[in-house]
């Protein structure tokens, strides 16, 4: 589908793009966006899901079988400019697609992947969510995360920067957490007590019931024995009386 351009044309195009206003640039991007053309049907794509807001197709350069690209129908170059409501809808659909992949492609997991910006690996100028079916031992190394222990002061400085911007007050959370911890442990104790009291009650009831049941419901054999015994005793007694 890609057309070859001469160097002269390239230079002219670059000059043109440089002089564009942001709106013009967006329109130009949209016009030249492969994914917008798939959405409008100008270029064929392997569609797996479509509604009024989003389209999902199979990736033609997949990391594995059933690799899905989910994109908004409107042209948004990067994630931060996608309206929140569209974003919310997209991730609900992504969940459904992930579920379908687990069920029907017998995947053992999925990796949901988004690249924001060229350094993060974003290739297309159209925001999209990758839904990548995963299998135990599939060895997609690029998607295996290697974590390392960070220095405490590094984490602390980043935390300060971010929380200052967000305006988050950790104090409240810590207090809340402590309260929760306390209530949790109290709950546990209450549960334990209840359980043990239940157990003792159960034991007592069992004892009573078993005693009762022995008295009231002797087995047939026992009954026979008793009858025999009683008959025996009675007969002896009677015999004794008779002298």
């Amino acid at each position, binding site marked *: 589908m890609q057309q070859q351009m001469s160097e002269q044309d390239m230079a002219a195009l670059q000059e043109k793009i440089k002089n564009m206003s942001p709106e013009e640039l967006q329109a130009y991007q949209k016009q030249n966006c492969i994914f917008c053309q798939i959405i409008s049907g100008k270029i064929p794509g*392997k569609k797996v*899901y479509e509604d009024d807001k989003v389209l999902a197709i*199979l990736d033609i350069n*997949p*990391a*594995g*079988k*059933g690799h*899905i690209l989910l994109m908004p129908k409107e042209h948004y170059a990067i*994630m*931060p400019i996608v309206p*929140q409501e569209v*974003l*919310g*809808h*997209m*991730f609900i659909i992504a*969940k*459904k697609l992930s*579920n*379908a*992949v*687990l*069920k029907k*492609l017998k995947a*053992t*997991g*999925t*990796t*949901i*992947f*988004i*690249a*924001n*910006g060229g*350094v*993060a690996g*974003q290739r297309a100028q159209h925001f999209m969510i990758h839904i*990548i079916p*995963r*299998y*135990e031992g*599939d060895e997609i190394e*690029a*998607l*295996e*995360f*290697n*974590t390392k*222990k*960070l220095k405490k002061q*590094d*984490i602390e400085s*980043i*935390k300060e920067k*971010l929380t200052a*911007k*967000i305006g*988050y007050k950790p104090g409240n959370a810590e207090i809340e957490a402590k309260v929760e911890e306390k209530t*949790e442990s109290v709950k546990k104790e209450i549960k334990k007590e209840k359980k043990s009291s239940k157990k003792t009650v159960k034991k007592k009831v069992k004892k009573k019931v078993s005693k009762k049941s022995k008295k009231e419901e002797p087995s047939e054999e026992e009954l026979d024995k008793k009858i025999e015994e009683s008959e025996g005793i009675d007969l002896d007694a009677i015999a004794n009386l008779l002298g």
Partner: protein
Amino acid sequence: MTGCEYCDVKEKIIYEDDKVVAFLPANAIIKGHIKIVPKEHYRIYEEVPDETVTHIFQVSNKLSALVFETLSVQGTNIVVQNGIPGQEVPHFSVDVIPRVESDGLNFVWEAQKFSEDELQGFGLLIKEGLEGKSKDKKENKKQEKKKVKDELNDIETIEQEEDEENYLIKQLDRMP
């Protein structure tokens, strides 16, 4: 859930609301790596209710944008490792990973090749998987309705039987 690493998160929290918590994990992919988790304990993506899904990714998007501004990075990756083999803690989480040029990370996978027929097959199966769910739901609802009906019927017959018994007792009482 007690004993769950993410349910018990109390340190290095950078954001929190009634549904989600965002924190800086001690073991990170890179400096500035943020984890966002729902407060409720859901094991995998499929278990997270739609409302929470919407919220957690909207928060993740905001935090991602914030990372651009605050940590002067050039990009971010937003990733969910769902199930085997990627997920390490059995509590659903979203990773926001700040990116700069030559940071040593590479999440670009090698493209695999599949035949046209294979792709068609994957597509059909996925579509089936999407449809199957709604059918299942309908089927479940039907079954539930049936169950409730049966239960109601049972209750009715029991009541009838009781009425009959009462009638017999009344009859007995009337006997001289």
